[in-house]
């Protein structure tokens, strides 16, 4: 296993669309182990996508089981050929990225998603997830389509008004993502 080099902006390759994985073999599983090592190697990242290390295949890893305040999660997930089949709600939250050093910004994401994917052996997976974990998965899948969170950043003023409406509508106080 080895930590791989992470592509950072303005590397044009980050805009490249990734292709579906067709061969579920030892080489794939070995790459996934390296990808996970890369995720753990740098600053605390809850996810990583294969194109971030220059492999343009639809593979992401997400693990939000270790946040400061616990959030609903499915633990360590390897998602091959992931596809979001259902979105619901939206919320603004702050994001950063291994490929965008020293910058964070607010991004609108769906609060609930349903997801289909395959595991590293090619077996079908289905997940339903919310909040921080759903945000992480949406961020990583964006990488597979050549999108970065900086392509989706909204201003703090947008946050102010939309979050307020959301809170009042749901009658929840102090909710955060």
């Amino acid at each position, binding site marked *: 296993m080895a930590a791989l080099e992470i592509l950072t902006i303005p590397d044009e390759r980050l805009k490249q669309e990734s292709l579906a994985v067709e061969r579920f073999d030892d080489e794939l599983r070995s790459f996934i182990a390296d990808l996970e090592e890369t995720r753990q190697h740098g600053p605390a990242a809850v*996810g990583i996508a294969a194109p971030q290390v220059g492999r343009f295949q639809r593979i992401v890893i997400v693990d939000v089981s270790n*946040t400061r305040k616990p959030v609903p999660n499915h633990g360590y997930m390897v998602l091959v050929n992931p596809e979001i089949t259902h979105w619901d709600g939206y919320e603004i939250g702050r994001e950063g990225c291994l490929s965008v050093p020293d910058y*964070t910004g607010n991004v609108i994401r769906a609060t609930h998603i349903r997801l289909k994917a395959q595991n590293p052996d090619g077996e079908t997976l289905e997940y339903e997830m919310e909040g921080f974990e759903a945000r992480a998965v949406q961020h990583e899948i964006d990488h597979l389509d050549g999108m970065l969170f900086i392509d989706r950043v909204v201003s*703090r003023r947008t946050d102010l008004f939309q979050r307020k409406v959301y809170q009042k509508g749901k009658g929840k106080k102090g909710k955060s993502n």
Partner: protein
Amino acid sequence: MTNWNMLTLVGEDRPGIVAGVTDALYRRQWNLGEASMIRLGGNFTIMMMVSGDGDLYAELKQVAVDMKLRIHVDPIVGMLHQHVAPNIQVRVAGADRAGIVAQVTGALAEAGFNILELESDVAGLRDKPVYIMNIQGYSEAPVESLRDAVAPLVAQGMDVDVSPIETMVG
């Protein structure tokens, strides 16, 4: 060693201010750093890090006259790549009255909260103004102790919401 200045420009809002100012700087080979540009009460305000050599007042004189802008320049130590990600967000809303900002930020400062960014607006209606403020900052102290710090203000009827910000890095 880069020679940074904080350039402040203020004037009545009109189209073309940013383009006019930055074009003048670009033509004289000034380099821009981080900036905040926003419309406040019908005025357009710019605070911008610029680096280069020369007299900024002289070089911006023409655009300042054309756009009716006032200029101020301070030499600064420019520190790039040292961002602190906020971990706490504070939202405040209430009927506009004197002292809201002082009381909220005073309570937060005493609890060890450092403001990284503050935006406030006077919203509502002309005869019924509402003060809305959104603060992002960093605190080693837990969110609960900041909530305790602003609790007396909440008890007085002010709407102060303190929430953690968990930045998702992926």
